[in-house]
């Protein structure tokens, strides 16, 4: 893995809300093509960690370099940088006043200055890939949760990101719909997309993940390949956690 390009270089990342230290000197590197799955108990800081990667949370200490660029530097143009990072939220956050096609083409047209026809053509191709091309002119309120989340994923893909972040992308879904969303993510991983995923889907972590991180009390308490992570957990807190969720 070390021979691959480093996408994220995270050093001593800290985030405090007042006196509450949520991230406590986290350091790790994320390489191109990796699927890093982050698990941990609620309130452990795993979502905060993920959200700091695209600066939705402003770190209070440490640094994050993305493709060699220090994004925690105040002089860095974060809007430009965020275009390269796709983000999928627990609650989808589709734009309810726009059709599916408009949801997908808004950013490419306004930010990448793509001609409308080209942006729509690309969006329709992506919609076909997730089997939702007949929903192009529907509004988000007309879709099921699983469909909304698949749209949210391809909306991010429309910006051609170098990495995708997933924040508990299946936690708000009916159990029946979890599969269709994980299916799309599996395809993405197979195509070599770099992904950082915060999830409670241990099956997905085992099957698709290339590395699993256990975050607790704002620190990475254990990290390993999925096999070792689930077979031979070392940290006692992780053992307890796994015994509850598996």
């Amino acid at each position: 893995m070390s021979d691959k390009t480093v996408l994220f270089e995270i050093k001593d990342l800290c985030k405090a809300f007042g006196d509450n230290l949520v991230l406590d000197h986290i350091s790790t590197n994320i390489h191109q093509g990796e699927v890093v799955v982050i698990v941990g108990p609620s309130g452990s800081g795993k979502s905060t960690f993920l959200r700091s990667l695209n600066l939705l949370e402003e770190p209070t200490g440490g640094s994050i370099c993305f493709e060699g660029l220090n994004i925690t530097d105040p002089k860095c143009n974060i809007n430009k940088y965020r275009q390269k990072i796709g983000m999928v939220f627990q609650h989808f956050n589709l734009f309810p006043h726009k059709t599916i096609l408009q949801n997908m083409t808004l950013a490419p047209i306004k930010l990448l200055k793509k001609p409308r026809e080209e942006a729509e053509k690309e969006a329709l191709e992506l919609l076909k890939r997730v089997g939702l091309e007949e929903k192009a002119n529907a509004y988000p309120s007309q879709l099921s949760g699983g469909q909304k989340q698949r749209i949210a994923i391809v909306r991010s893909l429309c910006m051609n990101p170098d990495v995708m972040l997933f924040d508990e992308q299946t936690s708000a879904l009916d159990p029946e719909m979890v599969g269709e969303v994980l299916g799309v993510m599996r395809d993405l991983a197979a195509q070599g997309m770099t992904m950082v995923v915060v999830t409670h889907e241990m099956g997905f972590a085992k099957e698709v993940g290339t590395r699993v991180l256990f975050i607790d009390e704002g620190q990475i308490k254990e990290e390993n390949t999925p096999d070792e992570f689930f077979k031979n957990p070392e940290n006692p807190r992780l053992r307890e956690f796994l015994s509850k969720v598996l």
Partner: protein
Amino acid sequence: MEEFKQQFYLNFIEDNRWKYITNGLGTTFTVTIFAIILGVVLGFAIALVRSTADKSGSKNLVLRLLDWFCKLYLTVIRGTPAMIQLLIMYYIIFASPNVSKQFVAVLSFGINSAAYVAEIFRSGIMSIDQGQFEAGRSLGFSYAQTMWYIVAPQAFKNVLPALANEFITLLKETSICGYIALTDITHGANTIRSQTYSPMLPLLAAAVIYLIIVSLLTLGVGKLERRLRTDVR
């Protein structure tokens, strides 16, 4: 019936008195429409400052200063009667017979309405889920772009009923134009009354005209609301 005809002739036909009403109608329209435009533009700007300050926890000094100024503006404008504001604008701030009374009225009502519109817009912006901001920002939009393309259109749709309410109030509020001797519908009707000593028909006519304008406005807003609805199932 014969008496009604007589009254009608006296109040509207004789000496072309109907012109007081129609001229007044024009003034009411002009003042209302331009005051609405001024109020919406100014109100939206104030709402942006206020909600941005609220959301960002006001760390920025310039923003905090602007926010403080907006709060002062809201307090003063909402805390004093529109009529006093109109009189102050005409007799103290401009204090000149050369300035157009319509212009003074537009400015005064626009500045008044902006205070109410600002709070309406702000409540609309604050009602939009934080996730919409985050989705916009994570795609690479700046704060301003997110506001313009994603949040403001949804907020506008949500506050449309409250906004229509404010426009209706503004339209009727312009009936105090007569205090700076500007002939709007009300002042026109009142002038007829003072000439004919017959209050009923001119005042009823004015009332009916206001009612018709408000009804048309309500109808239009209802249409717009239906057009903006996207949560169809």
